[in-house]
């Protein structure tokens, strides 16, 4: 802290009888400072310690399956708790596909809302809407799951899935009976849950686009939409990308809502209407039922894989946002 050191060196005071007392007083303040600083430092460093401990515990407690299956754990499709033969591919596949589908829906929707809020809506309406959209992120994931089970699943089974099978049924992506639950349903719920992340960050970035850029486009005769397309969007591209990665990090680790609507079948199916399974969902469903050490540790290894993937995705997102504006505080 530069505050405590004076920038101009003071002339040393002439020795006087009062000096020793002054010095004790000062050094007692210094003692308190050292104590307080180190106390907060210890608490701060234990945060670092916890982050390391999470990684270490996941690694340490997944030793059995790492020795039993090696790297092929990540590429095998078998999931047989009775014979204790495990492979994580269906879960990795399900996690990646459901999150990717969710992004396909959430990016246009989220960026669209952000454009509306930043460009069209009056300032007051815009901040009120932003407030409401942040509420969407505050709703607990298990409540989304409840809505998913009792509203979205029947809706998908009766309307959306038969419609998709009728119109796009010639594609293997839309084959099969309409269960209601499945990859697509999970992706819809996930999309709703991650839209607020994309919208909130994108809106702030749109609002920070220099007015001169927009005025330049307007002066050339651009319509308002052309201003958005030619000046606002290119300027904010990397910021949007950053928000998308953060949203993806959230989607990959999302547990409850997905578990309740994805159907929980550990197989890789071509159809998006078929049930699937994700890494987070298998942990939620099977962890308390796992009886043998190998089974539990296999689930912990799935947790480790999920941990590594989400950390990497989040790091990329933060790096993009940080590079764009090193002074902005990240969320």
């Amino acid at each position, binding site marked *: 802290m530069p*505050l*405590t050191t004076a920038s101009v060196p003071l002339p040393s005071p002439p020795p006087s009888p009062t000096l020793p007392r002054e010095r004790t007083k000062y050094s007692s303040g*210094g003692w*308190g*400072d050292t104590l*307080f*600083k180190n*106390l*907060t*430092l210890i*608490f*701060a460093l234990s*945060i*670092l310690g*916890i982050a390391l*401990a*999470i990684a270490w515990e*996941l690694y*340490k407690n997944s030793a059995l399956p790492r020795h039993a299956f090696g790297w092929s754990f990540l590429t095998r499709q078998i999931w047989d708790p009775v014979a204790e033969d495990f492979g994580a591919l269906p879960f990795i596949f399900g996690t990646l596909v459901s999150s990717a589908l969710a992004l396909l829906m959430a990016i246009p*929707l*989220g960026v*669209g*809302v952000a*454009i*509306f809020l930043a460009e*069209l809506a009056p300032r007051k309406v815009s901040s009120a809407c932003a407030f409401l959209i942040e*509420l*969407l992120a*505050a*709703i*607990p994931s*298990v*409540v989304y*799951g*409840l*809505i998913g*089970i*009792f509203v979205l699943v029947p809706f998908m089974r009766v309307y959306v899935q038969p419609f998709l099978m009728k119109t796009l049924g010639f594609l293997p992506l839309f084959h099969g009976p309409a269960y209601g639950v499945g990859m697509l349903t999970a992706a819809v719920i996930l999309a*709703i849950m991650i*839209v607020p992340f994309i919208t909130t960050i994108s809106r702030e970035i749109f609002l920070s686009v220099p007015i001169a850029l927009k005025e330049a486009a307007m002066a050339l005769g651009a*319509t308002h939409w*052309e201003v*958005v397309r030619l000046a606002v969007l290119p300027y904010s591209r990397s910021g949007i990308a950053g928000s998308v990665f953060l949203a993806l*990090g959230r989607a990959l*680790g*999302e*547990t*409850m809502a997905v578990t*309740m609507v994805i159907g929980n079948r550990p197989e890789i199916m071509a159809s998006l209407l078929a049930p699937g399974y994700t890494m987070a969902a298998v942990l*939620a469903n099977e*962890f*308390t039922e796992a009886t043998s050490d190998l089974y539990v540790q296999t*689930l912990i290894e799935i*947790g480790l894989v*999920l*941990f590594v993937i*989400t*950390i990497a995705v*989040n*790091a990329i997102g933060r790096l993009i946002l940080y590079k764009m504006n090193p002074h902005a505080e990240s969320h």
Partner: protein
Amino acid sequence: MQTTYRRRQWMNNTAFALTGLCALITLGILFFVLGYVTYHGFSSLSWDFFTKLPKPVGETGGGMANAIVGTFKLIGLASLVGLPLGVLGGIYLAEYGKGNTAGFLVRYSADVINGVPSIVMGIFAYTVVVLPMKHFSALAGGVALGIMLIPIAVRSTEEFLKLVPMAIREAALALGLPQWKVIVRVVIPTSMKGLLTGVLLDLSRVSGETAPLLFTAFGNRYWSAGWMNPISSLPVMIFTYAVSPYEDWHRQAWAAALVLLMIVLATNVGARVLMRNQVKVVA
């Protein structure tokens, strides 16, 4: 010339109409979720829900009194675990941690913890608390939720302390106060409202978490004594009841969802109203 202009005008109107539609859809979903939960929750809510224990499987009626108390116990425990770490860590970052290695590492690990999926946090609490104790406990659930509190507490504390103008610190230092007293007696009281806001937002976020509790606090159909026994919580009850085959349990899941939503949204909105006033004062 005329047609190009028309086309561009048309494009302009269509594109903005579409963005408006996006906003309508998103807000529509929010109001639908809130309205649907309120409607179904209210019609299932009864006095019994707040005062009675769950009935055995197969019997109708009963309530979730133990889960409501359990949720608050878990949040209290999580605050004890997470908030001291988060707030003191945040104080370090704001006051001593600018541009040094320790500051960078701590900020980075807070980000990492923030990105850890909640279910993985559950595994961590399972390995460090449940495995050594050999049984599920409220303590394990509190540890899982408490660690989830840390990143936001660190961030919000740091940001709100940074909002305190340098001149105020300099004035206090010039009066001869040692730096730690300046922080404890001047900087923290000045930003108290902001710190409270951050903490409330943080608590509202974790109080709806289900995944970290599934195999730490586990669940309990009776009252849970002390901190070392499995304990029931609203989010886990909602999950258990929602995936069950019983009509009456579904009804109770909606009631629980309404109560949980009230707790979470009241804290969240309250905190943000507080923050709005705070920002006005600072600006």
